[in-house]
């Protein structure tokens, strides 16, 4: 669809500049999209790997916790786990990837998981909490990677829409408008020549008479 512009040389020059800029932008956005896609796939692979590790660790921890639950009356277990030794501290940082802001959680301080006496708790509880405590950094890494994947997928979608808009709407429209202006200017040129030729003819006829 051509743009609603006056078909003159000024507009033609302006449109040609815009077309060149749009083509350069399109190329850049395509490159960005490809790079985002490559990063996205890398993060998806990493997330899959991390999720498997976390799942395995959680399975082990829950298995141990079940064994502990088997031999420990609920009141002792509830009492043993009722009082944490410290607080978990997380730091939020923001990094940039292809100018996309990616938040990142970092474990600043992890409290000691063993906060109970030994008389009423079995060693399976130690094992379970140790595994869970080892799993925590992996879970935080998984959160980071999965959040990055979500942000990258939104950015890829946004970039794809921009690339498509440039490729299938903006550039064709400008190209069509340029063609229209060029045709229009050529027509004007031809009709001008015709008019001049006709004037010349009339003048020659008048001289001959």
């Amino acid at each position, binding site marked *: 669809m051509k743009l609603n512009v006056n078909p003159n040389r000024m507009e033609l020059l302006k449109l040609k500049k815009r077309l060149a800029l749009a083509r350069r932008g399109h190329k850049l956005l395509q490159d960005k999209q490809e790079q985002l896609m490559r990063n996205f796939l890398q993060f998806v692979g990493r997330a899959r790997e991390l999720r498997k590790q976390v799942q395995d660790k959680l399975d082990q921890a829950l298995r141990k916790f*079940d*064994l502990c*639950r*088997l*031999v420990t*009356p*609920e*009141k*002792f277990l*509830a*009492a*043993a786990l*009722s*009082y944490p*030794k410290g607080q978990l501290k997380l730091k939020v940082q923001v990094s940039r990837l292809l100018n996309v802001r990616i938040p990142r959680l970092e474990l600043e301080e992890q409290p000691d998981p*063993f*906060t*109970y*006496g*030994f*008389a*009423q708790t*079995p*060693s*399976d509880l*130690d*094992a379970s909490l*140790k595994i869970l405590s080892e799993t925590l950094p992996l879970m935080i890494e998984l959160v980071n990677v999965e959040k990055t994947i979500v942000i990258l997928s939104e950015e890829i979608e946004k970039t794809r829409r921009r690339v498509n808009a440039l490729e299938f709407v903006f550039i064709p429209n400008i190209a069509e408008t340029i063609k229209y202006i060029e045709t229009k200017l050529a027509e004007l040129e031809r009709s001008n020549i015709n008019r001049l030729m006709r004037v010349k003819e009339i003048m020659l006829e008048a001289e001959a008479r």
Partner: protein
Amino acid sequence: MSGLGTYAFLNAKVRGKLSKLISPAQYKELVRAPDVLSACLVLRGTEYRDLIQDIVSAADLPRIEAALAEHLIAAHREVRDVAKGHVPRFIEELLRQYEVENLKVLLRAWNAREEKSFIYRERICNEIPVDALLEAQSLEEIIVLLGETPYRKPLTLAREDYERTGSPFPLEVALDRELYEATWKVVGELPAVDRKIASRLLGIEADLLNITWMMRFKRYYGLGLADVIKAMVPGGLRIKEEFVREVYPGRDEASLMTALLTGVYGSRPPQVPAMKEVRGFERLEEFLKKTYLQQLRQALGGYPFTIGTVIAYLRLKKAEVSNLITILNAKALSLPPEEVETSIVRV
């Protein structure tokens, strides 16, 4: 009073109670039961029939656990009430273990300002004002509320550590130490034969606890020698402070386990695989518990008119209650019978 005079009736009573312990056939049925309700049906043929009457689902398990704990306390009281001479005082000390456990749960609940419904509120040995303790504003108030109970002194001594760390752990260690020291004091006052038997059985118990704890300290806590010695249960038969000072420092888990077992049994028993093997630790705990139960059974096989029969019965009862909790929880978690079998300890 002679051993015969003291133990004639008590021994008959305890033998009668021993015959009511869950039999291997009943254990087999319990292990094979498909769910909690079926396991409860099996228990209808045992001493526990009254406890499981109104059980309708696995959701009632916390209630069964509380009832089983109460049953165990009642079993101690029943034996204490028919005992004569020095025996009631000794059983009272064994019974106090449950009071200390309950007090530790109470202190944790107070410290965390959390759910309090699972605390046992009836009197066990001393008058503990449970609700007033839970409402206390400070540890000082708790110490005052504990009045003339034996817990006032250990809590006062551990107060500084509690205030420094903010954790109830030092209070728990102090309570445990007080209990064991008082128990050993009572053991020291027993007549010679009883003293020898009680020292042996309770000493083995302390050894087994210390072995397990030391392995846990080494594997998970990375505690230094001074902390290990501070947390040790006193009165071990073979595992004494000097022995720990010799074997604990500078060893890895596997060599520590071998050193501890060699110190107690002469060598590492074949049932216990090396620590680095996957089930090493689980097997060690299982082996130690089984060994202890065997020692209790042996005590029942000797001269009957001693305190050995009483200790053996009460500890076997405790193991039985623990096994029942394990089986019922396993049923609630739908674990296969083979796994349940490996989780319970009996001889």
